[in-house]
């Protein structure tokens, strides 16, 4: 038994949590490069402004300014955004594009970039009313993924749109207790796949707790279609377990916390016995709400620590509509007992 008893005190993290977080963050930071930005701008005055702005943050940000968008998309040099197609990763954290450049169809060009690299962060700059640009974007079927910065903009405006490319699970550590909220099943499943892929890469045992109305076979199909191509092998060799959430949490129609804790202990033990690094679990939590156990759910969650002492990382996946139903006090408690949150807008 890894966890000696079901006393929450035993789950307290020995090291001061804040100290631990800072230490981990610094380790993470050591791996990071500088932020790279690609700017497409034809006006020499504004090009100069970019250069001046970038000087202020230059050691930490590299900026490339181009005035030929065709070359940027189709050329053969390092600026060619599509060149990074095979890994679906760009060399640039942020691409800033002047949307009003003569006859060239910038929106179409950006659409091509996003088709190749869906997660590319794109910023449009414009002197026009952003609403007009948004209308043009939606006419061309470009509905999301692009922010608009209206000219003239200040340095802090520019600063606020610059950011490093972030994968939402990059910073998670084995021992974190994660709360996530979703507006759609699609979002939730996409995250489930990405989350499990991380676990597979890190040689962890993976558990996926699915909704009662989802068939296991259907789920396997979805996982495969979303990029987990070896899902059958993973299930066969025991690296991935799929269980219906109601069976895991409320098999006998009640929320029996000690029993659930025993299950977690057993699975973490199993991961160790299998020489895995630990247990990673993507847990859809809707069954508590479907069965009228929202109060019991909050109590159960609060029984768990915000940081575990054992190698387990549960991601508690909530439907946003379920979270919205919770009383403010319960929501507060729920937030407090997790140490990382992923809130989908």
């Amino acid at each position, binding site marked *: 038994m890894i966890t000696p008893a079901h006393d929450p005190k035993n789950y307290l993290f020995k090291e001061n949590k*804040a*100290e631990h*977080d*800072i230490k981990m*963050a*610094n380790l*993470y*930071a050591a791996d*990071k490069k500088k*932020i790279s930005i690609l700017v497409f701008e034809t006006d020499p005055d504004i090009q100069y402004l970019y250069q001046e*702005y970038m000087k*202020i*943050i230059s*050691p*930490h*940000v590299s900026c490339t300014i181009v005035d030929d968008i065709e070359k940027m998309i189709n050329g053969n040099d390092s600026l060619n955004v599509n060149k990074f197609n095979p890994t679906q990763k760009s060399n640039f954290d942020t691409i800033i594009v002047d949307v009003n450049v003569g006859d060239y169809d910038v929106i179409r060009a950006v659409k091509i970039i996003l088709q190749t690299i869906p997660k590319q962060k794109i910023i449009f700059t414009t002197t026009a009313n952003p609403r007009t640009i948004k209308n043009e974007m939606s006419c061309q079927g470009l509905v999301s993924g692009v922010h608009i910065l209206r000219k003239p903009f*200040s*340095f*802090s405006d520019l*600063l*606020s749109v*610059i*950011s*490093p490319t972030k994968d939402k699970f990059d*910073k998670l550590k084995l021992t974190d207790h994660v709360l996530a*909220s979703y507006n759609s099943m699609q979002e939730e499943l996409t995250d489930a796949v990405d989350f499990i892929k991380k676990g597979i890469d890190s040689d962890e045992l993976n558990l996926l707790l699915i909704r009662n109305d989802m068939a296991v076979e259907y789920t396997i199909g979805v996982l495969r279609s979303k990029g987990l191509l070896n899902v059958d092998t993973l299930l066969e060799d025991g690296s991935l377990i799929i269980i219906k959430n109601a069976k895991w949490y409320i098999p006998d129609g009640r929320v029996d916390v000690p029993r659930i804790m025993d299950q977690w202990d057993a699975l973490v033990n199993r991961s160790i016995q299998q020489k895995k690094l630990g247990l990673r679990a993507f847990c859809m939590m809707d069954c508590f709400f479907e069965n009228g156990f929202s109060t019991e759910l909050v109590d159960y969650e609060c029984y768990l620590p915000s940081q575990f002492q054992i190698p387990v990382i549960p991601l508690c996946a909530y439907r946003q509509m379920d979270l919205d139903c919770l009383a403010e006090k319960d929501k*507060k408690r729920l*937030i*407090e007992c997790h140490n*990382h*949150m992923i*809130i989908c*807008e």
Partner: protein
Amino acid sequence: MTGADLDSLVRSSNHILAIYPNGREKLDAAFRFLHDGLLNNEAVLLITDEITREDAITRMARDFAGFDVLDLLERGVISIRSTGQCHFINDSFDDDRTQIKWKKDVVESLLNSFFKENSSKKGKVSGLRAFGDTKSLFNKDKRLSNDKSPFSFIDNLVEYECSLKKHFPFPLKVICAYEEPDIVQLNNLEFKSLLKHHGVFHKDSIKELVYPLQNSHIMLLYDNQQDLNDAYITYINEGLAQGQLCVFASVLLQNNDFLKDISSRIINFEENVQNENLILVDMAKFYIQAMMDDLREFDNLKNKLVDKVRNDKNRDDKHVRLIDDCSEFLFKNKHFEECINLENWTHQKRFEGSVLCPYSKTLFDQFPYCYYLFRVFHSDDIVIDSRGNFLLDYVKNSEHQSKLISYMMKRMDISNVELNGE
């Protein structure tokens, strides 16, 4: 008025505990507060026995320029009542009764129309604000004490206050006004109970921005940039006047308008910058690094400041005042975990002095920001608004509430000592 209509107005609701040094300042504040209400299209209610109805009307007619006070009284937009007309002082109290009574007043006020030239928003009344003077209850108790009656108006007042919550589920702002000589008659337990049931605590003599305590981490929740700038100016100018090192670390320093406004209002700005009494730190680079979870530059800055003050033999007061808006900038731009990481760092790496971290109050009401509010705050944080009022609405948990109340009581003792000293 439907439930949904009410819901849309609830954001502005508040239960405020205010302490004034004397009756004159209390009434001045009352008329200012009610006038602001009219300008904001709210119905107003004055509850007091300290001034006659006629005198109150005369004062309103004088102070509320542009408003036809008699007309508004007739239409129920302005109400003036005695304490006896408002409090169930001979009854027992419960949540439901007091809540229902206030809700009735609010709903009635919302039925009124409001078309005054001076009104900033013409149209329907948007809520009710009330100023409730508690003085007469203390006076009545004083008179009763001669009769040796077991009945206490003060006990009933505390009981009444505790039957109300920090927030009203309808658009109501109430100031419960106490005078300093009266509030000291309450024991610690009674005073703590009052604080627990109010969302905002105001006392003029507690000047959090003027005399911040050593090691305090102040979360300043502001309504707009101008209010925030005013608070910055108070914090820095007072620090400079007290001979303290002031550090203004901001991501907005490159914005000319911002710096122009701030620098024009800081006393001897250029001289203080030149003499390094005031240090300006452009946080743009720090912000970029914080986004990548690299806080080493923050460590360096902190060490530099500590060394500077320690080695400055000419500086007697070693308190450093630091304004740092980097966390808020991370928060605004939805780098939530990085913001939390930086706030954790700030709590770990304390130094001799105070840190002022601003946050826009409106952000905390919005999704998804509201989800991160209680992870950004720490139990040791002092939460105030730009006027230095303590905000008890924004406490993280019961531990935070207890700590904040203890802190406020400590501050009251300090201010009492200062008053005695004067």
